């Protein structure tokens, strides 16, 4: 593939993914409001469009049209930089996530992944360290939160951002360590290879168990650590202390309004998506799912994407469900939970897993 077509394909893919992602984010907010409303015995949005389906659009228009307020005492450059940084970093991590195998459009085969490159022979070369890039980008995302709080020059913001940064740094450790078990089993950092190593079924003692070869089964502990740490990473309930509207007004984005606030908002939801994608890829076999015969070729090639989207949707649903169900942690409980429970458990999980891997050779 020459450079020109590479760039063209890449641009198309980026545009498409960003569009889908942002739309997804918008409708996730709708879904959340609806679901939480139902959980709380309310209706949620109903006025704009059927079932309130146009509500996200209205929200977006409102955000764009609102006055762009910048308080006097803020550190202006950083105040502007922070939300951009947050959104950019959350979007970058989408770049390495594979959604499926390949897709052939107009005789042109390409990988269903922004960073994936399809070679002439049909082989797909993924970026080797996809998982590390996601971790790295997530860790850069901390700056958005930290700078937002600090540059606002407001005590609520500062407290919120300090809480948020500390929380994200703390849980990043547990998050990273919970993934090591997967790495040990798959032997790769490439997301595509990790998914591929989950194809087929578990074979125990020569017996085909007909259980999908997903890493959730040997790594159930790792999965729960990942899930909890991911909730904390995305500052979602029950770990939403940085925002904690009842204590800190709105945490690090207290001083933000209009589009800058929307950026934080979107960043949070994109992060949710990233985390959900990652959970599906690492623990639930990614796009692998039951094969449905008798479908037209295009649909057939989109079937893996469907399975993947289903899994991601399940996690999004889980997020919302938990938000509607659980109360918030106290801050010291949060830190103690991260450092004294999740981290040791993750280390123990690594040790046990590596022993088993070593034992099995």
């Amino acid at each position, binding site marked *: 593939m020459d450079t020109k077509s590479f760039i063209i394909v890449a641009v198309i893919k980026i545009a498409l993914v960003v569009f889908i992602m942002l739309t997804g984010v918008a409708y996730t907010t709708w879904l959340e409001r609806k679901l939480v409303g139902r959980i709380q015995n309310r209706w949620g949005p109903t006025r704009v469009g059927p079932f309130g389906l146009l509500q996200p659009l209205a929200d977006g228009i409102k955000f764009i049209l609102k006055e762009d307020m910048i308080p006097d005492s803020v550190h202006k450059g950083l105040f502007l930089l922070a939300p951009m940084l947050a959104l950019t970093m959350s979007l970058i991590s989408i770049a390495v996530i594979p959604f499926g195998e390949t897709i052939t459009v107009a005789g042109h085969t390409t990988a269903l992944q922004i960073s994936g490159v399809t070679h002439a022979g049909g082989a797909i070369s993924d970026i080797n*360290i996809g998982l590390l*890039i996601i971790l790295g980008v997530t860790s850069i995302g901390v*700056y958005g939160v930290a700078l937002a709080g600090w540059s606002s020059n407001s005590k609520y913001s500062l407290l919120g951002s300090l809480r948020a940064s500390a929380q994200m740094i703390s849980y990043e450790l547990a998050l990273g360590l919970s993934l090591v078990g997967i790495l040990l089993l798959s032997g790769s950092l490439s997301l595509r290879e990790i998914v591929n190593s989950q194809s087929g079924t578990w074979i125990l003692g020569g017996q085909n168990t007909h259980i999908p070869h997903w890493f959730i089964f040997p790594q159930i502990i790792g999965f729960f650590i990942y899930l909890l740490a991911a909730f904390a990473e995305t500052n979602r309930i029950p770990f939403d202390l940085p925002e904690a509207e009842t204590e800190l007004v709105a945490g690090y984005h207290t001083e933000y309004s209009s589009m800058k606030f929307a950026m934080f908002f979107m960043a949070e939801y994109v992060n949710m998506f990233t985390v959900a994608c990652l959970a599906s890829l690492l623990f639930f076999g990614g796009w692998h799912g039951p094969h449905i015969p008798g479908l037209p070729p295009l649909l057939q090639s989109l079937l893996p994407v469907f399975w993947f989207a289903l899994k991601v949707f399940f996690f999004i649903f889980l997020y919302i469900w938990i938000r509607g169900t659980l109360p918030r942690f106290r801050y010291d409980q949060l830190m103690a939970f991260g450092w004294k429970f999740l981290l040791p458990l993750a280390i123990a999980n690594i040790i046990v897993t590596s022993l088993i891997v070593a034992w099995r050779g």
Partner: protein
Amino acid sequence: MVHQVLFIVFGLICVAGAVNLLVQRHPINSALSLVVVMASLALIYLLLGAEFVAAIQVIVYAGAIMVLFVFVIMLLNAGAEERTRGSRIALFIGVPGVVVLAGAVAWLLVHSSGQLGGVTIGSSDFGETHSIARLLFKDFLLPFEVTSVLILIAIMGAVVLGKREG
């Protein structure tokens, strides 16, 4: 060609970030400049095919060490450096100093590039994680384990230092 362009772009970003680090008087701006330098260095590492190093550059340096710096700056609420007579003198000495030093070294390197064999280097995927892991856990096992002790000591030292007396 693409390689050279990318190198020049990121190299310029690097230098700009580093210069900004010096020029800025508020430490948080310096810190962010440094993050920029590190991030672009990570990309240069990718150009050099060192993807693992690039990743840990981002994770460890940008994501951990620099966050710590920013954190401390926020914690201490450090203000901008005040301008003094000395600082102006320093500026007058410093800017030519940087130019002279960097120029001298650059001149030396260009001059001696013949001795380097004129080898041009580009991306290759030799720096993949597998081989580094093999090297790290076989040939450099002892240093690796010793660094873990070092880290432990550093953690304890930091805890002791950070603890308030009494």
